[in-house]
């Protein structure tokens, strides 16, 4: 179990109270090893977004234990969770979520600001991260001066700049055309090849096929925890 990145044991998540209870997740057990590249799929309402929020330490399970890097994070304080998100996790969102008033470089430096990295070091690491995603010529551009694909690459650079253990991507190609989608997926593949654990939520089979493992959610439970991407066509389409 030493190289287990994520270990979920009996996780359930309930929203609301009394008559209007919604069981978003019920009794989920799931493990993801270090260095894996997996996609979480499922129809809308299947619990995959809730799963993503839990894995990303943005939310806490109602019951169950969540070991991230062998640490039970289910009962940590808000501040401790913020620290874990800052240092151990990287987020990539469908809508990029770049701050419009900041340049690409400043956007990428933001997580290091909260990690108390010295300014000189920030500049070095942010530049390196932007070079890694192929944006060495766009360091001083503001988000409005960048294309969607470029913005998403800035967001990826931002997510990896604190050298996280785990990269979480929520529909990262949802707002991009097919050509740019491929570019972004190539970056994820490259990051995974260099050892980063990547977990991605997507509803596009083509996107999921670039990963090595598909976790299929249905009605708040794991329908299939280990589906080979090639077998995707066997499942009913959401």
């Amino acid at each position, binding site marked *: 179990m030493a190289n287990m990145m994520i270990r979920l044991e009996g996780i359930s998540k309930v929203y609301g109270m009394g008559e209007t209870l919604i069981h978003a997740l019920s009794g989920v057990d799931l493990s993801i090893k270090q260095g894996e590249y997996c996609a979480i799929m499922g129809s809308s309402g299947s619990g995959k977004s809730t799963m993503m*929020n839990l894995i*990303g330490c*943005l*939310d806490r399970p109602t019951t169950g234990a969540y070991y991230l890097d062998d640490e039970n994070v289910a009962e940590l304080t*808000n*501040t401790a969770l*913020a*620290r*874990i*998100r*800052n*240092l151990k996790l990287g*987020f990539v*969102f469908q*809508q990029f*979520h770049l*701050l*419009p*008033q*900041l340049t690409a470089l400043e956007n990428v430096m*933001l*997580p290091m*600001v*909260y*990690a108390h990295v010295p300014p000189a070091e920030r500049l070095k690491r942010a530049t390196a991260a932007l070079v890694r995603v192929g944006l060495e010529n766009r360091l001083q551009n503001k988000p409005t001066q960048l294309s969607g694909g470029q913005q998403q690459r800035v967001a990826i650079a*931002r*997510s990896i700049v*604190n050298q996280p253990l785990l990269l979480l991507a929520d529909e990262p190609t949802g707002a991009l055309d097919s050509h740019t989608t491929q570019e972004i997926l190539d970056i994820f593949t490259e990051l995974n090849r260099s050892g980063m654990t990547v977990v991605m939520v997507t509803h596009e089979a083509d996107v999921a096929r670039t990963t090595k493992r598909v976790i299929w959610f249905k009605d708040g439970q794991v329908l299939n925890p280990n589906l080979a991407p090639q077998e995707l066509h066997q499942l009913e389409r959401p």
Partner: protein
Amino acid sequence: MNPLENIKMAVKTLTANKLRSTLTVLGIVIGNASVVAMIGIGQGAQTFTQERVESLGANLLYVFMDGQGSEVGAGDPPQLLLSDAEAIAAQAPAVKLVSPMISASLTVNYQSRTTKATVQGITPDFLPVRNMQMTTGRFWDEVAQRQDATVVVLGAELSQKLFNRTNPIGQEIQIGDRSFQVIGVLQRKGAALGVNPDVNAFIPITTMANQLVGRSVPGGMSIDEIEISAKDQASIRAAAFQVTNILTRLRGKQDFLVVANKSVQDLLRQITEALSIMLAAIAGISLLVGGIGIMNIMLVSVTERTQEIGLRKAIGAPEQSILQQFLIEAVTLSIAGGIIGISIGVGSAVLVGVFTPLKPTVPFSAIVLATGVSGGIGLIFGVVPARQAAKLDPIVALRRA
């Protein structure tokens, strides 16, 4: 995130939306401008009245009859006597000079020019007591005083009225039904406490009593007022005490008042101070309104920037950081508004100084205080929006598009 970075970030965010930031701080700008201008003008008014009263003579004391003490229908009301003044001069060690005075409104004419003027009978000590100088000519001496000389010294404005630009020295003027020779003109002084020596004529007190107005009463010559200058500022109280004692002993009862010019000055200062505090307080209300404006816009800004807040939380900003960020934005706004407002306030105070005789001064402490209060207002009115931002659920914040 350290405070300096927070401030830089706040400036960046605020300058990204210049129009809104400007409108947001307008309330604070107006509030500070009016408070500072009011303080400046109030200070100017205070200095102005202080200087005017001070110009009457720094260590001056007045002695006059206590009007309320006289009983109606009990014969002539009691009068101050010239001998009272002489006794004070001889016996009170804290007193430097004594200037007894009789005043009357009389007709003054030179050739065809006729005017009504206050004519004051005085002694040569009047000049040093009142801190006055001559422009031209001379003042009469002790000898002339004793001989009931018919000489007159004119106030600057009266002299101009009677003689225009011609030299008045040596000319004869009529006061009442007597002829007086003009021997000097006083330097212009300006009005203070309703008294303007520039429009008066001055003649020896004995001449006045004996030839113009009958002032013989049992016991000597009655006078209207005694002005006294104490040896120095420190002996004003002692002088007042001694004068009261001497007069009470001489007159048998305390039917007079001794008022120090300094206490008049103090009273006026208190009044002008109270007035300027009141004005500044009224202006301060607009500061409060400005603070509410900041809170309002910060609340809107939190709503608008939920995605930013959500993102910052997702990438690891603790609640404390978000709270700090919004607080610093509010404080930066209000201090910037404060500084602009203070500049405008100082500017208008300076303008008032250019166009009026007032010399407004804005004390440095007021500027520091105004800046501090502005910052405080930003802090107080920033707390609610900042807490709202810090408490946002990152999931909800990120999802809101």
